[in-house]
């Protein structure tokens, strides 16, 4: 990857992290940990991988993104705003009465959202349904679905995993934000899902493991997805919950807690020297 492109994407990722902190501070509630862990994944998708048009959110040729882990919507709202779907100032209305930026995504309100999600485990089936629809119509659009690793506890994910491989949905790419933490603690202690890669392989998926904070690796994985035929792909992205903010990293307590103004200032200082 060209140095200039990598720098541009890393700069976008940094801006999105700052947006997440500012949004959550303004909202006074929300989910920083799982938003910050998914920043590079979402940045790669919206600014390099997916075909989409912020000026025409309903463009038929667009690829589709489903945020199955709906609670991480701040990262998607920030990416959508950075991409130009709506004014960045609106980010600060997150979770407020009357806002288009609901606590979990509401597709009816905000342009750029494909599905209303928040009840975990449902997104992969939605994404598989879209992928199947495209296949039936001979369309070439791709479908991406971001899941949490704790979310994989939900049985419906594995129903969808079987459906997607049964129907050979090679236009479907799942991404697991594998940050190893869920609300009650380490994922391996709450309910051990290992060996995770073997599980997906056994369900008939093409499995790629990446460092989920290395944007070049992530983009390379998405390229491999596009060249994989007759089976769906899942990218297991090894990430750190709360990535980028030292006191949030690897701490389940920051799953669903907003920073106060002091904590937000500290976080912003770490992320960008307090420049934004």
């Amino acid at each position, binding site marked *: 990857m060209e140095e200039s492109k990598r720098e541009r994407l890393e700069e976008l990722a940094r801006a999105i992290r700052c947006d997440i902190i500012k949004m959550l501070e303004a909202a006074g509630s929300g989910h920083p940990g799982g938003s910050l862990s998914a920043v590079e994944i979402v940045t790669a998708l919206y600014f390099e991988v997916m075909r989409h048009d912020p000026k025409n959110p309903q463009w038929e040729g667009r690829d589709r993104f489903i945020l199955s882990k709906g609670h991480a919507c701040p990262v998607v709202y920030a990416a959508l705003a950075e991409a130009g779907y709506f004014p960045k100032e609106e980010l600060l209305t997150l979770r407020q009465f009357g806002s288009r930026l609901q606590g979990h995504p509401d597709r009816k309100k905000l342009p750029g959202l494909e599905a209303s*999600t928040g009840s975990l485990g449902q997104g992969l089936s939605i994404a598989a*349904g879209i992928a199947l629809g495209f296949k039936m119509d001979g369309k070439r659009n791709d479908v991406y679905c971001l899941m949490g690793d704790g979310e994989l506890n939900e049985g419906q994910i594995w129903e969808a995993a079987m459906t997607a491989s049964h129907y050979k949905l090679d236009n479907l790419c799942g991404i697991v934000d594998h940050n190893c933490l869920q609300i009650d603690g380490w994922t391996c202690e709450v309910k051990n899902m290992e060996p995770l890669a073997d599980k997906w392989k056994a369900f008939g998926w093409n499995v790629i493991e990446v460092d989920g904070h290395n944007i070049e690796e992530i983009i390379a994985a998405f390229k491999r997805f596009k060249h994989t035929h007759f089976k769906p792909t899942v990218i297991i992205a090894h990430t750190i919950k709360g990535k980028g903010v030292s006191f949030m990293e690897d701490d389940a307590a920051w799953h669903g807690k907003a920073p106060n103004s002091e904590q937000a200032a500290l976080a912003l200082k770490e992320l960008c020297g307090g420049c934004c």
Partner: protein
Amino acid sequence: MTIKLAENIYKDVDKIPTRFGYGDGLLKLGEMDERVVVLGADLSSSLRVDLFKDAYPDRFIQTGIAEQDMMCLAAGLSLTGKIPFVSTYGVFCTGRAWDQLRTTVAYGNLNVKVGSGHGGISVGADGATHQALEDIAITRVVPGVTVIVPCDYHETVKATIAAAQIEGPVVIRFGREKVPVITTPETPFKVGRAEIYREGEDVTVVACGVMVYEALIAAEMLAQEGISTQVINCHTVKPIDKETLIEAARKTKAVVTAEEHQVMGGFGSAVAEVLSQDMPVPMRFVGVQDTFGQSGAPDDLMKAYGLKAENIVQAAKEVIKIKRGG
């Protein structure tokens, strides 16, 4: 104005299961609209969706025994412009997949249709696990969902076809057992409009599903005793036809509801929500009284759980008595 119904209702009535109406309705829809796709969860022949599957194999999606996945797959398909019909037994598609129906489909306002089979106790020998008796309550409570309970085969065909014309989630409830065919292909049917099947002065019976037939039989029995009964087929439980219900209550001043479903939160409750606010009159609810079903022959179960014309007659007499101050 009363509506023209089948001529042999009261003698040698024909009987066809309403699930056949769903299957035949889908078959017609398949030809009418290529956006229509059907999803099945390993119950294709029972729900008669094998007819669609055989005619349009490329538009039939087998999901295996995975109802939650099926509901959300349908949601995804609707996002590509398809009109998906999710098809399985009511206990599964409205119960097991309720969260998927609520959050993904209804909250997202997606164009998903739910063919909810094996409604009611007349499922019979399979017993309580497979007898959907709570489905009307738990689907009508979800915002934006249209709920239709057709009364017979022809009405199920019409409801299935009409569902595809509605933008948004629709649940169509039908049953397993053969039930009387009381309408004709020409009998008017419009989603959201209750139809007066018999005019009367002393009491109104508002029914849905197979209980419309029982209500007509009850009206005949009451006529023998000089009681004039109005019978309303209120096939659309939501959005409910307030005007027709209020007008009937104003006229007869006594109302009985009849449903093959729990009375708690179900069809009768929907009627009562309207009348208690806008035209309060004495009411009785014929339906399953807060209990699970069991195995048995369908008609024996209908009798045992108080879902026959005789039960409607009894309820009608009770409300008339209350109306007359006694």
